[in-house]
């Protein structure tokens, strides 16, 4: 079986993909950043001694981790507006869904990391008069952030790819543009291969830098 690969159409259409890439980044970076921040809060809530705080946090985490992201995005676009009475743009719905999903995973990373520090560390800090926040900031987190780095990197890589699901809401990100071109030119193989390469080029530098940072941090201790 022979197939005539023809990448020439990409020579004219690369600006379309570039615009898509831009939207992908606009989903990826904010969702990761907000997901980290929200995940930290959610992770702390999960560790709270008060059941009134810990149980809802656990519930939210399990819902987001236990259901398909695709359905979450669709739900935020179609169902959530009915609940709150405000129509969201596809982009905002996708951003919201991706952020909350990322937050749920990051919460578990934070929780696991914080719990991995022996309780005596916290007590040592508290016995010196530190507040909970000071103990967390000065004693607990510095010890665990390094250990959490690989997990957060994985999450960021996963999220970069998962942003492609926003295409089902017609968010004009990379995957959507790729599907659009495929439908126009009937050249899905060339186009999707190119799209995959663009994702790889987007993700690889981050994963490379993170591995280097990890080695540097490991060398320092």
């Amino acid at each position: 079986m022979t197939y005539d690969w023809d990448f020439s159409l990409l020579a004219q259409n690369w600006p379309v993909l570039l615009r898509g890439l831009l939207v992908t980044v606009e989903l990826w970076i904010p969702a990761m950043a907000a997901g980290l921040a929200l995940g930290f809060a959610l992770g702390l809530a999960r560790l709270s001694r008060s059941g009134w705080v810990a149980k809802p946090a656990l519930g939210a985490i399990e819902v987001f981790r236990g259901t398909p992201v695709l359905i979450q995005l669709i739900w935020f676009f179609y169902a959530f507006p009915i609940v709150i009475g405000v129509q969201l743009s596809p982009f905002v719905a996708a951003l919201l869904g991706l952020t909350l999903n990322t937050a749920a995973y990051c919460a578990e990373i934070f929780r696991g990391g914080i719990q991995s520090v022996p309780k005596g560390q916290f007590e040592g800090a508290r016995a010196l008069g530190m507040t909970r926040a000071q103990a967390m900031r000065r004693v607990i987190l510095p010890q665990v952030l390094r250990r959490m780095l690989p997990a957060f990197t994985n999450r960021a890589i996963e999220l970069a790819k998962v942003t492609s699901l926003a295409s089902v809401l017609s968010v004009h990100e990379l995957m959507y543009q790729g599907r659009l071109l495929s439908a126009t030119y009937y050249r899905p193989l060339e186009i999707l291969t190119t799209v995959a390469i663009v994702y790889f080029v987007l993700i690889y530098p981050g994963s490379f830098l993170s591995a280097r940072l990890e080695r540097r941090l490991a060398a320092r201790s």
Partner: protein
Amino acid sequence: MTTTPLLEVEGLHKAFGPHEVLRGIDLAVMPGERVAIIGGSGSGKSTLLRCLNFMEVPTAGRIALDGRTLGRRGRDGGTVYPESELCGVRRRVGMVFQQFNLFPHRTAIENVMEALVTVKGTPRAEARARAEAELGKVGLSEKRDAYPSRLSGGQQQRVAIARALAMDPEILLFDEPTSSLDPELVGEVLRVIRGLAGEGRTMLLVTHELGFAYHFATKVVFLADGRFYEVGTPDEVLKHPRGERTRSFLARHSEFAF
């Protein structure tokens, strides 16, 4: 001479769920007094000590520091302890743990400086000078830049003592400070603690080292079933115990010579 006790405890109770560990402890510690707390495993020695700096919050009872009762009356009649007050109490009541609890990501001197800077707001240069002085006092000047993982247990415990001392505590609590040390390292830590006694510091020490307790303490209490079963001078409690349970406890630890 009559002064107010530095530490006063009245009717202290502590329960973990249905399990009553402390069942009414009364204790007054005058400035400069050194109290050794002895008792069987699980008798509540650690719990008592941890209540005194509020690592555990008492279920009932009154604790006063320098004549001032801590906490305030809650709506349900119990005592509530605001977090800010407890942080203040912990600055005044230092604690040294059996497992040292040093911060592994900080060097010896950084361990000592940490709370000076974050809790007391001491400028870094000043905190460093103070930390160096404290490390010097426990004989660890040359280990100042070592991480805890590079120190022996005895050295770690001495850093932990320096760290507590740097905060200028009015009272020091020691919870079996030598129990997790190899026998040959016990001496160096006990020497440091003996030095603190010489300075006239107010201290409470939970220990199984009865020989050390005898020479160290001005008062010995034997804890059993969450109560003070016997209280007295080291001579009274350790040499001439009146209670049956004190006697059998001491008999089981007869390898200690005073």
